[in-house]
């Protein structure tokens, strides 16, 4: 089956340093995937590899079933891309930007662009340099959407926006997803927003993939356990402990389940998506691939 994004042992090395390594994952079509990880974890590298802007050092990557580096003229019209710097010509008016977009893109949907900008009350005659940060982000997003892409790649598009502008950007994004036929992959540090926005999550840390999974199954397979500290070892035998906070007697564990928790001494609580992400981000070293979530194991096999 064709995936929106499929990476196999994908790696990128600069000299001796790996920006990304052993990256194996699948992102199914139609998902909204959040890509999180600390600075320098390889998020932008992965996105640039997916866009065909970089040559892989190892492995391979396919977007919509196509190797992007070798087939850029086929794949680029099908991808909408918004970089954090929101590349707009600052002296151009919004209308001029749309004209540029129309000239450069064969499937350009001018009606869609005009309608969305009108809904957002963004003046077409204003030069983009004079727009607020939120409006610039919206124009960049609308430009990407007007290409009628099958895949939208966003590199921290809202990192430096105020909360309201962020929310409005997400509204435009979710509205576009609701119209169907779109896969979204976006990197973000704003993990509190992710459980509202994404249904798929990719966590990179230490240049490796820690998680690439459906959010629903991630929530099902990760729990918080509260119970007697002396029984911790028996938990560790079956499950993977990602995070531990213990007092003298009591332990509070965030675990990845490997079967049911049978010991009644442990109180099992739901873990929030934010808790799970933070636990993975805090891991100092990569958790061996073999104990990763089964979705990703299937990918590996």
């Amino acid at each position: 089956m064709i995936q929106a994004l499929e990476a196999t042992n994908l790696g990128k090395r600069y000299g001796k340093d790996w920006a990304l390594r052993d990256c194996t994952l699948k992102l199914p079509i139609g998902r909204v995937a959040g890509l999180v990880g600390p600075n320098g974890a390889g998020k932008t590298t992965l996105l640039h590899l997916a866009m065909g802007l970089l040559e892989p050092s190892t492995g391979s990557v396919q977007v919509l079933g196509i190797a992007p580096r070798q087939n850029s003229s086929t794949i680029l019209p099908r991808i909408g891309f918004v970089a954090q710097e929101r590349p707009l010509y600052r002296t151009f008016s919004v209308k001029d930007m749309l004209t540029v977009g129309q000239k450069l893109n064969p499937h350009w949907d001018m009606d869609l662009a005009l309608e969305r900008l009108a809904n957002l009350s963004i003046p077409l005659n204003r030069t983009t340099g004079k727009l607020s940060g939120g409006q610039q982000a919206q124009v960049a997003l609308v430009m990407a959407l007007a290409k009628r892409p099958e895949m939208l790649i966003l590199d921290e598009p809202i990192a430096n926006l105020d909360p309201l502008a962020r929310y409005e950007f997400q509204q435009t994004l979710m509205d576009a997803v609701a119209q169907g036929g779109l896969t979204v992959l976006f990197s973000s540090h704003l993990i509190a927003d992710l459980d509202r926005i994404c249904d798929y999550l990719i966590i990179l840390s230490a240049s490796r993939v820690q998680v690439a999974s459906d959010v629903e199954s991630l929530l099902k397979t990760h729990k918080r356990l509260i119970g007697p500290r002396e029984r911790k070892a028996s938990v560790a035998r079956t499950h993977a402990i990602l995070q531990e906070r213990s007092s003298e007697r009591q332990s509070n564990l965030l675990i990845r389940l490997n079967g049911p928790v049978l010991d009644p001494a442990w109180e099992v609580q739901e873990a929030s998506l934010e808790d799970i992400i933070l636990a993975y981000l805090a891991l100092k070293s990569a958790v061996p691939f073999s104990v990763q979530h089964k979705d990703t194991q299937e990918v590996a096999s």
Partner: protein
Amino acid sequence: MDTEKPVIEFYLDQRSGVSPYMQLVQQVKHALRLGYLKEGDQLPTMRMVVSRLAINPNTVFKAYRELEYEGLVESRPGQGTFVRKTLADASLASHGELRQGLIKWLQEAEAAGLDEESIAALFVSTFQQFHKREEIA
């Protein structure tokens, strides 16, 4: 259709720790229990919820599907999602009296010197024990 005021206005509490999907389900059930939502009422369209809450459309779909699975709503193709069954039923009539009973109990608890947190803790733990006993029985 979108100009009409929706029968229920969803909101999301991002600090609650409850998943957005579950929050939507719970808000509908809450409204059904208290009689704010009645049989035949139309839930807001998915598009409407998505653009108001800036929420993933799949989440709204999942919440509506769960409510449908529980028999509380039905989706009519091309029309929308409608309430099939209220949860208030006969029990709604007794809410007033039960509330009076609770108020009386709260007054007694206060008179006995319990503060708000102790009252809440006592209620929750009693409630949980009560449920556990039901499960065993």
